């Protein structure tokens, strides 16, 4: 994670990896299960052990407390990028009945829920189908029992690259067997350089992209002893997974992150930074807005005091209606920092719209476009008004 990305990671239950994985590795060894199980156990959650999954209920208008999210990993198998919903094929877990294996899991991102890809902020549309993701979820009682997939309110979804980088972890390349299409790697903590006890074997093939320096390398550039980051697919079925991408060095990892950062910045500039309204002073026509996290912090430099920004009313999906016609210009009266909370950027704006709209109510979502950002039509399928034109 770069220092410039406004992402809040505090509510991630860190034990789900660094603390639990070794213990489960040993359990797995004891059970002499397959590498698939080892992989699964590597990503097992608190539900597997002495801790029951948290069923904290999201409160309207409040960011969740730290450590309240529930970790689930899986592979992205379907997405509705406009509505920020999708489905995962969850990783198999030790506590599951085999009947429940691979049962698709629906998710809808919370308004302050974020994505990360290649170590940078992202939108759902940036994630290729099949990407293995690590997620943080909250239980939505309307969706079912916890074990049956009721954790549908997404807080964070990120690819292996982002996940491991954020955890300060990587893979040490131990061996390469291109004839079999295998690479043997061992998990490594970059903080203390401690290696996991047990190695993992990933599949590689001609489709695997090898990132090296400022360009692409080849599988032949792989050499034992390298420190890698990988993204994988086909991870939840019969093996630890196939590598879609392998990053051989820091430069290639920075290149990927920088590129994704620009992709997301461009997206935010056309769609606006999202936040919710904390308070409304109807008499003065003042709105206090807390911006959500999940964007490159440099974007806020475009918001100047006294500048004229465009506010778009949006739904919890962050989807606006008709931004050209709905925009309400507002004067930025104040920009202040507030105590960071999971989901929050820690930035609060006080703005004065030219007129009040129905959507200017506490807990409602706004998207803000800085004065120098382009305010233009979005593709029709992204607009809520006049109607979703996509074929059902």
């Amino acid at each position: 994670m770069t220092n410039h990305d406004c992402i809040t990671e505090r509510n991630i239950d860190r034990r789900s990896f660094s603390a639990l994985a070794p213990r489960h590795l040993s359990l797995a060894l004891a059970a002499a299960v397959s590498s698939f199980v080892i992989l699964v156990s590597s990503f097992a959650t608190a539900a597997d052990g002495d801790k029951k999954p948290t069923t904290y209920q999201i409160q309207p208008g409040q960011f969740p407390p730290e450590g309240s999210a529930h970790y689930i990993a899986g592979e992205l198998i379907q997405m509705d990028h406009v509505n920020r919903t999708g489905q995962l094929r969850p990783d198999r877990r030790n506590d599951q009945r085999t009947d429940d294996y691979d049962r698709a899991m629906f998710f809808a991102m919370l308004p302050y829920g974020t994505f990360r890809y290649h170590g940078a902020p992202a939108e759902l549309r940036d994630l290729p189908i099949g990407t293995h993701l690590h997620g943080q979820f909250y239980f939505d009682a309307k969706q079912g029992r916890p074990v049956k997939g009721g954790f549908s309110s997404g807080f964070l979804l990120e690819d292996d690259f982002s996940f491991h980088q954020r955890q300060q972890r990587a893979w040490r390349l131990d061996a390469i067997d291109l004839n079999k299409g295998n690479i043997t790697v061992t998990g490594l903590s970059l903080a203390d350089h401690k290696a996991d006890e047990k190695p993992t074997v990933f599949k590689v093939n001609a489709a695997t992209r090898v990132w090296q320096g400022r360009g692409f390398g080849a599988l032949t550039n792989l050499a034992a002893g390298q420190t890698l980051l990988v993204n994988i697919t086909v991870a939840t079925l019969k093996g630890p997974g196939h590598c879609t991408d392998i990053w051989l060095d820091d430069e290639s990892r920075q290149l990927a992150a920088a590129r994704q950062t620009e992709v997301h910045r461009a997206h935010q500039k056309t769609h606006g930074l999202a936040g919710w309204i904390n308070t409304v002073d109807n008499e003065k026509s003042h709105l206090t807005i807390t911006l959500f996290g999940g964007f490159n912090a440099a974007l806020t430099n475009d918001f100047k005091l006294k500048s004229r920004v465009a506010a778009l009313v949006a739904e919890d999906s962050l989807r606006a209606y008709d931004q050209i016609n709905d925009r309400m210009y507002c004067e930025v009266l104040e920009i202040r920092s507030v105590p960071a909370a999971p989901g929050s950027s820690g930035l609060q704006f006080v703005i004065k719209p030219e007129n009040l709209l129905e959507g200017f109510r506490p807990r409602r979502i706004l998207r803000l476009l800085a004065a120098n950002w382009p305010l233009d039509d979005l593709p029709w399928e992204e607009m809520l008004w006049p109607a979703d034109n996509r074929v059902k």
Partner: protein
Amino acid sequence: MRLMPPLRTIACILAASLGISAAASPGFDTVVKPFLAEHCVRCHGEKKQKGNLRLDTLSRDFAAPLSASHWADVMERISTGEMPPEDEPKPKVAEAARIAEWIAGQIKEGEKTRLARRERVTFHKLTREEYANTIRDLLGVNFDATDPTGLPEDPSWQGFERIGSVLSLSPAHVEKYFAAAEAVLNEALPTVAPKKFSKRKDVWDLRYHGQRPKAEKLGIADQARVEIWPHDGLDVSTDFPVSGDYRMRIKVSGMKPPLGRAPHVSVYAKDLDRMLFEQDVVTPEDQPATLDFTFHVPAGRRDIRLTCEAPGPSNLPRHGRYDAGRFFTTIKDSPTGRQPWQWKLTDEDGVPLRPFLIVDFVEVEGPLQSTWPTPQQQKFFSTGGTQDVAQAKEIVTSFASRAFRRPARADEIGRLVKLVESELQSGEKFESAVKAALVATLCAKDFLYLVEGSAGQVNPRLNDWELAARLSYFLWSTMPDDRLFDLARTNGLHQPSVLRGEVARMLRDPRAARFTTGFPKQWLQLKHVGMFPPDKKLYPDYDAHLEKSMIAEGTEYFREVLEKNLSVREFLSSDWTLLNARLAEHYGIAGVKGDEFQRVALRPEDHRGGLLTQAGVLSLTSDGQRHRPVHRGKWVLETIFNKPPPPPPANVKPIEPTPAGQPKATLRMKLEAHKSDENCAACHRKIDPLGVAFDNYDAIGRWRTEEVVRDGAGANPKVDPSGVLPDGRKFADGAELRRLLVADTDKFAAAFVEKLGTYALRRAMTIDDRRALSALASQSKATDYRLRKIVEALVVSDLFQQR
């Protein structure tokens, strides 16, 4: 030098043609000419014509009303000492008196000539309002005279719309009168019974077209209502099967913000350019009011819109637009009933943020005539009738006598009966044949005109029939009622005691509202309010309701003075006025609720009192952008003192904007710099003080202490409302000027009597009316200028009873 003889000849011819001869005005060369040469011609002669007046060539044809009037002005100014001005040598008193006496004598001589020339019969055309009122009283039918299908707008003279000499009759008028006669008679005497029509438009018709099943599925079909945002409205266009009176009922809640304005319902027929109904509505959301009103419309589809007239932002690009698929139910959950991109109606506790309406239904029913045959059919064609020429004669005699406001003559009846006979012979049914004669009656000059006098005799006095008509059109703007006809028939109306009794009776009658509305509107020229619509950016609060309220303050104020028989002094200054909530808000006066006008006590800090500080009066002289002090001064001279200044000379340079970088300047400052021309300055000395005194009021009559100036640099300049009257009296502001005007009540009363006479007699007051007007003014002083007494004295006077 050789040219001299021809020049002298031409001069003699000109002099003869202009009536300028020693014989026509004996004593002029010895008495008047030297005086004018010494005291007047330097400023009003060949080289200068201050006030656009030249005396050395002023016609001395005193039989001509215009020149006689000019000389009367000269006489008045000399005898009052106004002229020559202070900075000129003063004539001896005896000298001035001799001049005044000479002029007065010439005017008197001229009067005899004018009276001898007077036409034996005078015609005064009904205004379109009077036409409609008369039709209503005659046939019980409402005629929409101002509709596009009605009658052309009446021209006016100095604000008065009933001046016979300017109400002309063109071929287009004749066609309109014919069409109008046919339309009103068809409505009064229909050939088939009108079918009753009733239509209720509920929320499914008004907005949620075809969406009832969806609302039913949501379980809110019985809760759905329709909200109307400020400036927004509903299309309630309706097909009216026949012309007639209809009733509309609107079930509506009016949501008023705690500190804001009440929502104002307006129902406007766009194609008729006519407001059918308007009213402030304030009711709790769960206790809607049912507005119930009637109106008259011609048959056909009428483009009607129900609008919430209230302040609010522009509804463009789409924040005020309705979005299909949402059902408004209650303000408490309006966020779910409305789209987030729509204007915010209420705060988080459901308290209205802006005025808006919630409508449940709009219902139209009619025509309202409840009986068949109609009352007019029963009256004209009673079932026991013989349906022959004799009955036709009876019908047309009765009808024409009422329509002509006098007994119809035998020759007139004969022509109408002949028309009936002709129709019957060509196969028309009896009712249709009679109707043709009635149409002819309504197109006759004796119906369309108030005819006074007789071709056969010279009689300046009105007979009682003519007097009854003059009186009823003066106070009711319609034909005489049965009592006036009865009094005319017995020749008893002209008796002063009877006339006084009739004035009292007529002013008690609801029809007197036409006088209390019509006269002040025309006298004060309130028709010009909003003629130049105020700039929306400069005056965003200005709207149709405010404009109507501004006009209504003037008419309601007049009504109050008349009803309470107060002194006309109250028109100049007062410590009260009549306001509704809308106008009170405009004035910044708290505590006035509702749309009804109510008497409000004024404090000095309200800066109001009398007509001159009323927003309507202050705005009618503005140009939509800024106040116009010169126009205000001119209005005061014209309306309050009946001394209209001469028109400005041609090629007057416009006021230039202040160059960028220079300090901002008030309009008054710019005017001072502008008045460099000495000839202009002479008039402006009289006009401007009466205007700048009210510089504390902006173009829409709001109080201010600074003038908002767009061009130039620096702070807005302070208003300077001080001034000096032509007679040297100084004032610090508008309030002091009003006190000075009150001290001149006698001058105002004289002017007021003349204005009232113009309205009542339907003609301009001339030099020949001065004596009578002066007597009335003196009489009014004896009764402390009380308005009812002035009206009564006018009606009883010879002036009113003569042609």
